[in-house]
């Protein structure tokens, strides 16, 4: 299986898993936005998901494998790249590389840490800030849980910071997908780069708005 060993093969796997995770990020954002409807919205949404039963677990395992593939190859390729550049130039003069493109490994690892924290907090629910309970209809009260946690300024700030890191990662990552898959040329590259940035900004604003709205009291119980 040369796709698992060659430079371009592994990048293609990273690109595909990365892009599928971007799709998840889209869906997740749409789901999350049900919080703006109030407790009814997001609690109903959560119940629907839970009722899917084993499908949820299959989905979770698939997502975990994406993270694993994307992460393992990301680390492996980065280590190889470091080995290929044994000595730095005395003067550094990069004209095209950006903060985003230069720090993919670090933003990637930070996102991984954030995902672990996020799952422990809202999925496994073992962090100290979590308030558990059910709503009037007997559904799990996700709304109350999230709003309580985000009332904590530190947690809200951490989420916004994580979304900035995600923005940096996707700012380079989305257009990078098209280049790596070869779906690119000199005319499309500037357009795709801009679109990638726009999508990344939408995620940043969309996701950050939840902790920001809750912290500022715009969204409350």
């Amino acid at each position: 299986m040369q796709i698992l060993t060659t430079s371009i093969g592994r990048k293609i796997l990273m690109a595909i898993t990365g892009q599928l995770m971007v799709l998840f990020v889209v869906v997740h954002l749409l789901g999350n936005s049900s919080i703006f409807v109030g407790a009814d919205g997001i609690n109903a949404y959560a119940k629907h998901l839970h009722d899917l039963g084993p499908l949820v677990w299959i989905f979770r395992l698939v997502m975990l494998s994406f993270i694993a593939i994307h992460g393992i190859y990301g680390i492996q390729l980065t280590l190889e790249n470091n080995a290929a550049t044994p000595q730095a130039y005395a003067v550094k003069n990069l004209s095209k590389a950006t903060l985003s493109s230069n720090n993919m490994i670090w933003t990637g690892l930070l996102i991984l840490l954030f995902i672990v924290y996020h799952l422990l907090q809202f999925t496994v629910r073992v962090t100290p800030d979590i308030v558990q309970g059910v709503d009037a209809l007997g559904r799990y009260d996700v709304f109350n849980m999230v709003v309580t946690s985000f009332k904590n300024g530190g947690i809200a700030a951490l989420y916004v910071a994580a979304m900035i890191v995600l923005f940096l990662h996707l700012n380079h990552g989305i257009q990078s997908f098209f280049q790596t898959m070869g779906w690119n040329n000199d005319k499309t590259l500037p357009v795709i780069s801009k679109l990638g940035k726009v999508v990344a900004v939408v995620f940043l604003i969309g996701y950050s708005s939840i902790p920001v709205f809750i912290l500022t009291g715009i969204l409350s119980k």
Partner: protein
Amino acid sequence: MSDHKTMTLTLIVWRQKSANDPGKFETYTAKNITEHHSFLEMLDCVNEDLIAAGKEPIVFDHDCREGICGMCSQVINGAPHGGQERTTVCQLHMRKFKDGDTIYIEPWRAKAFPILKDLVVDRAALDTIIQAGGYTSCHTGGVPDGNAVLIPKPIAEEATDAAECIGCGACVAGCPNSAAMLFTGAKVSQLALLPQGRPEAAARVTNMVNAMKECGFGNCTNHYECQASCPKGIDVKFIARMNREYLKSLFS
């Protein structure tokens, strides 16, 4: 155009006696340089002074001095070939510098390009990549008439865009990962675009991509520094085309 003004410059140059020597920077002064000196002619003058003073001149690769052979290879102030658009070091002129400037001069740095001496590196790895598949397997003689297969002008033009690569290695030197994707992508694309190269396209891209790794080049992370470093302005769209050819080869 005034020939009277001259410049004095401070050069901080990488000196390394041999492949195994650790190497270090040395500082030199370049005097009486005019705006019409090319960068290499400026170094020639510095070398003449060094020899007269009984010191070892700076060793650097160069040959045609008209920007086509791809022999010259210096990183100047952090930019391969000095950073002027579509320009090799030999075509870089001193009018781009000011009197009193300090200039750092370093060799290409990459694991795949071991330093031989001072600013001279070994780029045999690029030949190895071409040997892995950068050709059509036609025999000498026994080929059809040149007009037997028509090639639309836009295709011929795009293939020429890719074929302009001079194999200097600036793309590798400029890449934060020391990847050879632009070099390899240019050759893969040139031959993939032309009907004469199509029959072997799948095997070619596989073999050349494997050769890149075996030679110790890094992996592309789409910074596009290579295009900025390329003295021929080879477009990163040829990397995309290579990726596309590679993807296709997986299903052939």
